[in-house]
């Protein structure tokens, strides 16, 4: 166990350069504003004097390395600046809205994995069958769907035409009260409070946006699962297992599947990247009060501190997710253990 702990720690250390890169790029992005940021932040009615004041206040009179140090110090203290439009600290707003985004993203990922993995594996095991062709068609169509368009199409069909889904306006219909805040996930919180009606209401709101996002992430996962499974099934060790008379179940679901999961785990990093991006679009379509729609609103009114804070938050979240993938991979594949 000691060796594994060491490995996990070393993987965490290896995430530091990525984190540093993220901070440097976000700093660069804040300094790339067109024109003089001080002029911009001072507003249209600014005088020379007030611009100079703001410049000093923002530290823009310092050298670039010093500016970076200030920026990094502010980050460490959790200071992402204040939103121009609401005047609230960006970090607070992001923290308040993050659970909504996470609830949506995680539900979508669970949903798509639950469908894509069995689909890809079955398609590979029955290569050339109708399920294989269906999988191929679904995969190609799936990566071609613009998320925002899928979302709108689902709203039209399930809300306007069929009336099955509630209005695409946020996490909970106004007839319900928000459940007590424990995890921040409405469905979980409501269930924990024993309020099944609210849980149902939250679930109904969640199902369309989560399906939209899941449809988008389904394709890459199914594609990779199928390809990895095909590769595993045609490898030498499967032939050895067959020649030793191992059962079909053992060969497919232990030998091949376990090996096929390795590239799939790696692909999940890319899928997370796509999901977090598509999340922004889905939140806008469904007026979902997460950090994505916050960023879109901020973009419209050119609220830069809010947008940069959002980009940084997403990047840190993504680095963390990648770290989790890395650790899982290390624990699953013995070959990575000896090379550290």
């Amino acid at each position: 166990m000691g060796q594994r702990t060491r490995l996990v720690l070393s993987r965490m250390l290896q995430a530091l350069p990525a984190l540093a890169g993220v901070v440097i790029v976000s700093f660069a992005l804040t300094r790339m504003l067109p024109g003089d940021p001080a002029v911009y932040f001072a507003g249209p009615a600014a005088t020379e004097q007030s611009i100079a004041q703001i410049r000093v206040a923002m530290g823009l009179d310092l050298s670039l390395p010093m500016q970076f140090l200030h920026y990094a110090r502010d980050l460490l203290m959790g200071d992402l600046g204040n939103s121009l439009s609401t005047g609230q600290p960006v970090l607070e707003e992001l923290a308040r809205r993050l659970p909504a985004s996470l609830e949506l993203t995680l539900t979508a990922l669970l949903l798509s994995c639950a469908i894509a993995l069995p689909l890809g594996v079955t398609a590979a095991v029955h290569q050339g069958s109708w399920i294989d062709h269906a999988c191929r068609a679904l995969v190609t169509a799936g990566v071609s769907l613009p998320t925002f368009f899928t979302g709108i199409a689902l709203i039209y069909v399930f809300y306007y035409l069929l009336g099955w889904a509630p209005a695409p306006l946020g996490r909970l219909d106004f007839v319900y009260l928000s459940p007590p805040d424990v995890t921040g996930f409405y469905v979980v919180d409501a269930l924990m409070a024993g309020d099944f009606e609210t849980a149902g209401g939250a679930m109904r709101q969640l199902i369309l946006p989560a399906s939209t996002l899941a449809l988008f992430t389904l394709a890459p996962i199914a594609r990779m699962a199928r390809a990895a499974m095909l590769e595993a099934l045609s490898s030498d060790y499967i032939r050895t297992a067959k020649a030793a008379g191992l059962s079909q179940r053992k060969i497919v679901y232990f030998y091949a599947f376990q090996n096929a999961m390795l590239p799939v785990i790696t692909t999940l990093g890319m899928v997370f990247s796509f999901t977090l991006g598509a999340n922004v679009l889905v939140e806008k379509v469904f007026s979902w009060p997460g950090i994505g729609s916050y960023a879109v609103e901020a973009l419209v009114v050119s609220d830069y501190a809010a947008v940069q804070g959002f980009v940084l938050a997403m990047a840190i979240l993504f680095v963390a997710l990648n770290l989790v993938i890395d650790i899982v991979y290390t624990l699953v594949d013995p070959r990575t253990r000896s090379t550290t």
Partner: protein
Amino acid sequence: MFLEVDHLAVSFATRRGKVAAVRDVRFSLAKGETLGIVGESGSGKSVSAYAIMQILDRGGQLESGRIQFDGMELNRYTNREMRDIRGREISMVFQNPRAALNPIRKVGHQIEDVLRRHARTSASGAKSAAIEAMRAVHINQPEKRYHSYPFELSGGMSQRIVIALALACDPRLLIADEPTTGLDVTTQKVVMDLIAELTRSRGMSSILITHDLGLAARYCDRIVVMKSGEVVETGTPDGLFHAPANAYTKRLIRATPRGGIGIGDLVDPPRQAPQRPAIGAPLLQVRDLRKTFGKGVNTVTAVDAVSFDIHAGESLGLVGESGCGKSTTSSMIMRLADPTSGEILLDGRSLTDTPASRFARDPRRTSLQMVFQDALASLNPRFTARQSIADPIRRLTRENADGRTEELAGQVGLPVELLDRFPHQLSGGQNARVGIARALASRPRLLILDEPTAALDVSIQAIVLNLLADLRADLGITYLFVSHDLHVVRLLCDRILVMKKGRIVEEGDAQRVMSNPTHEYTRTLLDAVPSLPNLKI
């Protein structure tokens, strides 16, 4: 008969429709007998074995044939029924042992899987049974190895695990499909001896599938020769080698390098070996050459204080197993890599003064050329044969590229009409000729031959070796022949160096090294290479 295969036909579904891989194959095997199935690539020898086991690759189908195994008609068995046969009655050992094991499962557990599948052990006794199976194949400290993953084991050790896995349930027939291909000759001998010992002591029958006639001759009671999906001849090693009835068998035996023959005896009809050119002054001198990789504690010394001379007109053999440093040495001489220390001199002038990265523009680039191991991989896939041969002519000489290319094609026996083909449109032998022509283009004085025939079937190897001997006689080029196979090297070389772990352990006249080796390692090497009986046909 214990195993009887009759009228076996297998086809594969391809994009161009059904292609027959094996036709009307028949052979039989007695209890306790070892049968060799010998043939060159594409002869259908492996497919026949897979058909018996019903583990054909996707698209493969048993068209017809009867497979009778100890009274059971295996060809009528369903896949489900075959699963009880595989591993318990008939087992198989494959080539490339490291890929043949599940990379993310402990080897002990993989053996347990087989034992438990065939109900040879209870859950609690599985571990000790697996360790017992590992001990049976002479694995040291099996309790410790039980927890190893395949990537932690050497090729030879992995093959023992595969054998342990195959023999764990005491099957009555073992099929070994090229079990030693890719292993070093010394490991090859250990693995083959192990298989022979275990099958004999357990009274098992076995089938050895190999491209190596020598291997089959040493280990088999009877041999089946296959060609293009058909059996051409069956017989005992003695009968087959002394009086082959079939023309193809005769050609195959003739082309296999063996003791006591000259290079001209490899081809049919035999010819006089070409004259060896006169040996002149030292052309290339290697002085105290060293090459290390890595830093600090991880330093690996690939080449360690190597010194030797090559005289003009001479053909020198450099022999050793994989990882002995022979390839590193040759790429330093070719000026593709820089030595860590030491010197290489051409005509007494230092070559190593010019770093490898700038040697492309050195006027002496023309003097040193090389023929690569895998001819196909050494040709740019997007260049025609003409472009490949013309490239060095244009870069290194002022000669007319078209005229010279055709002249070279003539010299290596490549028909001019093939010059506009791409590598994938040429056969292995033709690609080898293109590679040789390109190496000759700049009229080099020293040619390094880096295992030039290792990827070729023996019949083509025989032709290429003779071509090289002719070119040497005609052009007076000096050769450095790098190879793992002493018997091949002997045919072409005057003198032999034997390398082990970066050092030269033996050096001497080719005949003397072969007949009377002084170093222990050379003897091991010679002993490990299975060769055909010393005969003339």
